[in-house]
């Protein structure tokens, strides 16, 4: 077991890669009641074309299967795993993103028992045709719930606009139609390909003794046998640099229009620290251009073009990265035009004042410090960074070393006019 001390943050992370390939991280948090544990596989909604473990040909699986698999992991021959967590005083959950599936619990007691339950249930799949069929009704309602959610619709509508072929454009839960095709055999195939310990990470954060916990996990894993890991072969279609569609409008039963502008960015080949710098530069750029203290925000707010729902987001994962800017508005056309102009001007070096940069950087450092109060943030973000070959604890020192030039360079190379698209949700005429 190695430990890395992050002096400035006063945190220590203990790490060991076990014999079966599982990466285990432990971050002790003195003074906290809660222990939060995530067990995550580097597998998400975009991994829908791959060579199944032990086979030689590529297989394309139905949309929404990673999320479906996540749901079905909880059901076992002897009942629902939620029941067991509840009996042990733990609150359990799971989520699926574009690139990850995470199983987790938080608890203030029985930490070892709950960790064992987490490891054991994720490592013992049990799927039957009957339980798979039953889940289709539940997930169908989850999909319909999102169908009524204008924020989700505008977000996914925009991603669909941005990408022509890449599976990031597929809704994580799939559709009622696509999940109808899922069988128990699909689930086993995906499970065996992507849930090998070598493709997974366990992150424990809370008031724990790292040596004791590591030994506990080591023993649990040593008691199980896994085949030798083989490299996972995924395949992704070619994706053009330009947005697939420049615009679409959706009509929903809403009072207020929503406008989101997306910017598809070139896929970067950077790794490690350089990649992390790129992600930080993106965050700083958006803060400088669109933050609450930016001139853009003030002018647009005072003109009644935006309200406090206005915001921005940058996503960079395996093989894709994009920025999204927008919010509720009465004039979606005008807002989308203004956002696009602001970004294109930034590409030419405008709006980049040194004091705005300093302010954005301070804000980002403070916000990271605040995030380190949260066990959920630490475990989820650390895992995401690790899967991408980055280190979460490098962020603050890296930010402190960044300069305005880093942001200017990012704006110049990553903002491309062909990458723009917009998506609106507009009130139905009858509403």
């Amino acid at each position, binding site marked *: 077991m190695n430990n890395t001390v992050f002096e400035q943050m006063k945190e220590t992370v203990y790490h060991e890669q076990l014999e079966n390939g599982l990466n285990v991280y432990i971050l002790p948090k003195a003074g*906290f009641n809660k222990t939060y544990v995530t067990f995550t596989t580097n597998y998400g909604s975009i991994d829908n074309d791959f060579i199944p473990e032990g086979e030689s040909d590529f297989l394309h699986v139905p949309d929404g299967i990673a999320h479906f698999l996540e749901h079905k992991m909880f059901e076992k021959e002897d009942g629902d795993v939620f*029941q067991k967590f*509840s009996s042990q005083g733990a*609150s*359990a959950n799971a989520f699926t993103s574009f690139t990850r599936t995470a199983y987790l619990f938080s608890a203030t007691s029985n930490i070892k028992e709950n960790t064992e339950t987490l490891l054991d249930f994720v490592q013992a799949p049990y799927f039957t045709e009957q339980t798979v069929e039953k889940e289709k*009704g539940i997930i169908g309602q989850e999909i319909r719930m999102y169908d009524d959610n204008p924020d989700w619709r505008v977000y996914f509508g925009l991603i669909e606009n941005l990408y022509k072929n890449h599976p990031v454009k597929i809704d994580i839960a799939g559709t009622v139609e696509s999940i109808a095709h899922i069988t128990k055999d699909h689930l086993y195939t995906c499970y065996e390909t992507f849930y090998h310990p070598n493709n997974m990470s366990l992150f424990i954060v809370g008031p724990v003794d790292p040596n004791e916990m590591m030994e506990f996990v080591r023993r649990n894993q040593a008691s199980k046998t896994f085949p030798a890991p083989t490299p996972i072969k995924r395949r992704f279609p070619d994706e053009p640099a330009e947005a697939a569609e420049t615009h679409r409008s959706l009509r929903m039963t809403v009072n207020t229009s929503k406008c989101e502008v997306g910017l598809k960015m070139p896929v970067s080949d950077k790794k490690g620290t350089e990649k992390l710098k790129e992600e930080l530069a993106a965050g700083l750029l958006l803060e400088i251009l669109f933050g609450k*203290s930016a001139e853009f925000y003030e002018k647009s707010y005072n003109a009644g073009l935006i309200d406090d729902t206005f915001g921005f987001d940058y996503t960079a994962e395996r093989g894709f990265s994009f920025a999204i800017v927008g919010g509720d508005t009465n004039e979606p056309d005008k807002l989308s035009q203004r956002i696009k102009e602001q970004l294109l001007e930034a590409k030419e070096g405008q709006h980049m004042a040194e004091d705005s940069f300093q302010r954005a950087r301070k804000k980002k*450092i403070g916000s990271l*410090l*605040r995030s380190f109060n949260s066990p959920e943030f630490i475990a989820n973000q650390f895992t995401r960074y690790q899967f991408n070959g980055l280190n979460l604890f490098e962020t603050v020192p890296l930010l402190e070393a960044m300069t305005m030039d880093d942001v200017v360079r990012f704006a110049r190379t990553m903002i491309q006019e062909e990458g723009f698209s917009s998506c609106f949700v507009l009130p139905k005429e009858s509403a």
Partner: protein
Amino acid sequence: MEAAREQSFNHPGCTVHVIETEKYKTNTVIIKLKAPLERETITMRALLPHVLQAGTENAPSATAFRSALDDLYGATFFADSAKKGDGHVLTFTIEVANETFLHGESDLFDQALSVMSDVLFRPFLKEGVFPEKTVMQEKRSLQQRIRSIYDDKTRYASMKLVEEMYKDDPYALSAGGILEDVEPITSAALYDYYRKTLAGDTIDIFVIGDVKAAEAAAKIEAHFPFEKRTAFFQKKSASTQVTDVRVIHETQQINQGKLTIGCRTSVTYADPQFAALQVFNGVFGGFAHSKLFMNVREKESLAYYAASRLDSHKGFLMMLAGIDQKNYDKTVKIMNEQLDDMKEGRITDLEMDQTKALLKNQLKESSDTARGMVELLYHNIAAGVDRPIETLIEEIDAVTKEETAAAAKTVVVDTVYFLSGKEERE
């Protein structure tokens, strides 16, 4: 467990509560101002925090104010308004980095106190009142915020349920304000109301972080010189007898039906049976092992979410589920059966144990965040009871099945509000 060890200080115009802890990388100050929930004032109270953040004497515009916060290493400042039983509570929160974790910074906490004090005591004024333009902009934003509740169908359905159930009770009012009451508000009236709020509201200030209690309390007194006041008398609205269950069905062009069922109970936070009511709600619909989740979702695949929520200061309980409208009758029947089972005491040992374990876990987890601790403390303050979290945990542990069933018997279904798509129900 690590609980909120709080030290209180009674100042003339407010009570200061300090929690000394080194477990966070930030320090937090939370100010709560409580007044009775009333139609006449609720919309002004919803508007006021936004106008106050739109500029102070030292930072005379929203942009200047936000820049000052960013310069304090992105101190977060936010305000919201919420109902607490029959009270309306405005909450102002500032959270600032503990400079120990930064290179070459000092007194960020003192600067944060100054910023917050500026917001409450030194707003930017023109001709002695809030600037006309600011009030107009914030009114427009507030109107948009209120209108957009309609866009979130689950939230909209619960809001309509509460409006229908509490027709002659201020609890029907939305904490975020009433749309038609926004337009008539003038700068002068809002400023006048602001003065009254500072002079008359019941005020509690919480400091959580790497501070020394007495020193922090002294700083608070210097920065927030609230004048002496008398506590207002919170009259408890009379509980209503339910005669028949009312059923309201609204249709819109949506995909999924949002079912909400509102219930009343005579037990509230201040009552000795509160722990039993909590256990009841946990067994009934609070968790993934609860009766509603197991029967509506897991057994029948009718819904993705099926749960119950309790507002313990009011004695209001809501069941909710997202369903296909053709399954309306079936779902309502199953939900009612679960409630009947609870009343008849058909509760297993396992359900009791699981619920108690998770309720205790929730309470302990809440004390891990500054805001969670403040919410736990404020429950007691708002309800006027002295029940430390350790005591509540003991009470939860001691609840029996009979007491749980007795708590269930106080729960009466009042109104069903179903929002669904336009097609006919099968």
